[in-house]
């Protein structure tokens, strides 16, 4: 039977991918970031994760505004690495699990009534590719099977935080009805505070970032009614990505065990990481 073991929230700043590929992990500006992922990666290996459902957003790698989905679920066995304008990163194609993904699709659409766009072809964006190799081995091949789940946070109208919360709950239902013994982590990526356009370019808000990291852990339902405008006012217009974390948190038990947290605020955005253990699964283990 499918088990939801943990949830992870992570930022996905593209330059982290560049720094990773250039082996900058020990450089002074980057070390506080990369060191933060080490305990997370070790713990995920320890608890035997087999599958990662990654909620992320595309940034113009695969989806365009001709036809823009609110929620797009990948159902392939393999996903190519995207070229975001400067060539594809040297990573092996992301390894999927079509059978598991179609099961999730059936449960989400028929049981939980989510109006998914179902993708048999889907190209991976830094929204997923930045955190994935920080959390799992990828050489010689990925140590985890990934289900990509793309969320629109670019073109308004955006899904509400409440809808993302419900999505998380539906993902749990879907995972738990899977007949095979998969051990699943749900990852939500995006944020934290940042704004990338306008006079307000460079806006950051570490107070809000830290409050968010507390609330996503202890009191996540207090976040589900915050309107889009308030996410933008507090964190910056592009920080609506933070809502995606609610899709992760909604999948977990109300109370969670905090395994690890990291926060770093260089340059242009708050970079956060949180690792939360599901208490139902940990109690059963």
């Amino acid at each position, binding site marked *: 039977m499918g088990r939801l073991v943990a949830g992870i929230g992570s930022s996905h*700043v*593209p*330059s982290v991918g*560049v*720094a990773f590929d250039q082996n900058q992990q020990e450089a002074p*500006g*980057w070390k506080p970031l990369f060191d933060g992922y080490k305990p997370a990666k070790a713990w995920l290996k320890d608890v035997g994760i087999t599958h990662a459902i990654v909620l992320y957003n595309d*940034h*113009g*790698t695969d989806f*365009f*505004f*001709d036809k823009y989905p609110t929620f797009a679920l990948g159902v392939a066995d393999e996903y190519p690495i*995207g*070229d*975001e*304008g*400067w*060539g594809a990163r040297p990573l092996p194609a992301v390894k999927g699990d079509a059978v598991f993904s179609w099961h999730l699709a059936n449960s989400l659409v028929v049981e939980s009534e989510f109006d998914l766009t179902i993708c048999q072809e889907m190209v991976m964006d830094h929204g997923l590719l930045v955190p994935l190799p920080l959390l799992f081995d990828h050489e010689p091949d990925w140590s985890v099977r990934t289900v990509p789940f793309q969320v629109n946070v*670019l*073109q*308004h*109208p955006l899904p509400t935080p409440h809808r993302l919360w419900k999505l998380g709950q539906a993902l749990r239902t879907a995972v738990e009805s899977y007949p095979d013994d998969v051990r699943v982590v749900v990852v939500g990526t995006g944020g934290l505070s*940042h*704004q*990338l*356009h*306008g*006079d*307000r*370019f*460079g806006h950051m808000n570490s107070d809000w970032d830290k409050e968010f990291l507390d609330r996503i852990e202890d009191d996540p339902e207090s976040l589900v009614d915050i*309107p*889009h*405008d308030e996410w*933008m*006012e507090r964190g910056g*217009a*592009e920080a609506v990505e933070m809502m995606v974390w609610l899709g992760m948190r909604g999948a977990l038990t109300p109370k969670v065990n905090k395994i690890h947290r990291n926060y770093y*605020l*260089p*340059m*242009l*955005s708050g970079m956060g990481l949180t690792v939360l253990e599901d208490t139902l699964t940990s109690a059963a283990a």
Partner: protein
Amino acid sequence: MSRETGHSDHIPGTCVFTGQRSQQGLKLNSFAFSLHKAENREAYRQDPDGYMDGYGLSAWEKQKVKEKDWKALIEEGGGNIYMLLKVGAMTGDGLVPIGAQQRGESVEEFMKTRNVPLRQNM
């Protein structure tokens, strides 16, 4: 307000990427999106005007792209920052010069406002 209309513009210095803006900038953003393919970047380099004409860009849009006037492209042209970043990636302009231009600052002035000035960010 934006809950009803999706067209909120009350946050200073912020252009929310609404449906209205997406409609206005559809050709511009389509051009920028196309640059995720290496062969398209090469085609642009060979003939910028011809390439942009192929996406139906107006004279104003072509001029602002060539002038690297990101501020005008976003505030007046319906440009989406994530799409425009692909133009910058091609022309060698990272997020920092793109952002500094929008703030009306030099890169040096902007870097002074940062606590950890990482070379590449975002």
